[in-house]
């Protein structure tokens, strides 16, 4: 059991204000009820040293579905897998327009992407203490402890919503693009 508990005086003070809080604040009352009903969290020490179950290996189905969409709408796979060494820049550019138009439409349809930082590129920016290194990547000369003062080089991207379609039943996700046959 958890050994952590409140002292007598703290409990006495609570004895006076809690009933009023419960009576006049519905949200607080609900939280109290939930707290009392919740099973007591087992302390780490008490937990049996269970074999850690490995997370299921990603099958990549969703990734393949997104790839299939980008190929369908913007021919992305064709573009990336083609040998460009002999092509002129004008040829690559013309093909890039097709990829750009189609993939851009697909991205906006199936994902909502927003910059992580609202400042403009080049703006001064302060990186606070306790920043998340996954959200902010530092370069240059970060000496000492944060906060750091710097300049925004790239505002980053964050997927705030993913709206990939449900796969139709019985569809093989490994088929990124079907073969096309003119009959």
């Amino acid at each position, binding site marked *: 059991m958890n050994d952590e508990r409140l002292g007598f005086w703290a409990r006495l003070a609570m004895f006076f204000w809690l009933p009023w809080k419960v009576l006049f604040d519905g949200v607080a009352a609900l939280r109290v009820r939930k707290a009392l009903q919740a099973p007591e969290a087992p302390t780490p020490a008490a937990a049996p040293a269970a074999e850690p179950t490995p997370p299921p290996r990603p099958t990549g189905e969703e990734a393949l579905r997104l790839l299939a969409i980008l190929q369908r709408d913007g021919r992305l796979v064709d573009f990336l897998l083609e040998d460009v060494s002999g092509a002129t820049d004008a*040829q690559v550019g013309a093909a890039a327009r097709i990829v750009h*138009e189609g993939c851009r439409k697909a991205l906006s349809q199936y994902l909502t992407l927003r910059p992580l930082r609202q400042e403009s590129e080049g703006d001064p920016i302060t990186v606070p203490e306790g920043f998340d290194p996954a959200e902010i990547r530092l370069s240059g000369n970060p000496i000492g402890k944060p906060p750091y003062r710097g300049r925004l080089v790239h505002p980053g991207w964050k997927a705030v919503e993913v709206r990939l379609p449900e796969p*139709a*039943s019985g569809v093989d996700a490994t088929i990124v693009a079907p073969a096309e046959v003119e009959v």
Partner: protein
Amino acid sequence: MEEGRPTLGLDLGTTNVALAVARREDEPPATALLPQVVHEGEVAERPQLPSFVYLPGEELAASAIALPWDPARDYVVGAFAREQGARIPARLVSSAKSWLSHAGVDRRKAILPWGAPEEVPKLSPVEASARYLRHVREAWDHLHPDLPFDSLDLVLTVPASFDAVARDLTVEAARAAGLGERLTLLEEPQAALYAWVASRPDWRKQLSVGDLILVCDIGGGTTDFSLIAVLEEDGALELRRVAVGDHILLGGDNMDLALAYAVRTRLEGQGQKIDDWQFRALVHSVRQAKEQLFAEPTLPSAPVVIPGRGSRLIGGTLRTELDRPTLESTLVDGFFPRVQASERPAAPRRVGLTALGLPYAHDPAFTRHLAAFLGRQAEATASLPPGVHREGRSFLHPTAILFNGGVTKAAPVRERILEVLESWIVAEGGVAPKVLEGGDPDLAVSRGAAYYGLVRKGRGVRIRGGSARSYYVGLERAELAVPGIPPRVDAVCVAPFGMEEGSEVTLPEPMGLLVGEPASFRFFASSARRDDEVGEVVDPAELEELPPIETVLQGEEGAVVPVRLRARLTEVGTLEIAAVESAGREWRLEYQIERG
């Protein structure tokens, strides 16, 4: 009628269907999303439902076109139907609405896809339209299980140029789709004006008594003109639709095709071959380039790219450009030439044999069609409200113009139409018309229709219209028969122009009605003869003939019964003609457009 219940407006367009819902008069109607199959096996909500039906064979898995509310559907409607139809055109039904208004074919017969091989299942134009409507009803019910489609008032729009038969068939399609109960028809240009009124609380300040509004509706496949007059009645502004144009099968698709042909000619001049598949990609790319050039007036040209079909995208892509001079000469000068107000569209060449098919407009010049529309109306002015037309003018002078339809989103197109119209009016000493700004040319018709649903409940201003045509019945002349010469036929007016919804008229002269054996009734209509009264006899050569009614009326075989003809314009917006005997018997003459 219940207060506060939403009303629905449905725009059954030639290339897109849209649904809007109006909840309150002081709140602009909103577009309702329509879930549909958008890609193989993927259902998503879109603001428009492309008007296409695809009839699959073995090439698609059942799961590819399954709907959330019907996993076993054996056809598909909407965005994916259009996409799949580009791959296999023989199984695609398109332009069902144009077929619905085409008197040259039996519109209840399964003839679509037109010219498809025998193995492909076929639909009638009525059934294809019913499938779009059924999809909209089911899509609404899927998203709003607590507010069934059937329980709401529905306004369905039709082109102003639809005659009584096409309106009847539209209602028939709606009934087949299960949405007949609370249905009213509304003309599309009127719906566009309602949408403008609904989006402008101060609209009364922008119009004044004596204004004549030209609604210029240029959609993907068809063009529709209407004139609406602003009048005063009991001290309040009143709108009255005074004229509608003919059905013109000419729209934005013609323009995109014309541009694509121009670009293809240039590519072929450079030694490139373009197959059918690439040509469709070219049309798509040219449309994008066109929109880009229209949106950015300083851009000298926009790229056009046609992807290769195989996996070699970079090596197989053709690249060219659409330059501004080509765009302007092909599209603006080609379709909207600067012409005189007296010019008329080139008449179709009369040849002995013509391919059956849709009666596409022969003259691509919108400005000539507009000149014809305004000029023709000036020939019959006795029934026009006072102030709308003045002596000495060769055509009606609109004082305001409302643009609608996707084509009019392009500023150079709007400017050219205005420039031409202005030049005609100024040449006769008139004043340049003002533009009624605002509105969404793609979605205005459905929104205006939803708003009209509220208007019908007594909220907001109503456009008075009535019948946009006069209708006539053919009567054989009683004269000596001459071999080889068919008896001459007179056309007798049975329903005058401007007849109001819910009203009826009866022909004063009695006629003999043949009952008990097959009989054929000829009908005629005119959108220009506004001054004919009931019973007036007219030469049929001046009218447009409708399909005959061929039917057997119940009765003693071969008897001729004296009757009077009665015409009624129903609340729904369709025309009913009945023969009434003085003894009380009544025969309804219904359009049975069966012509083998």
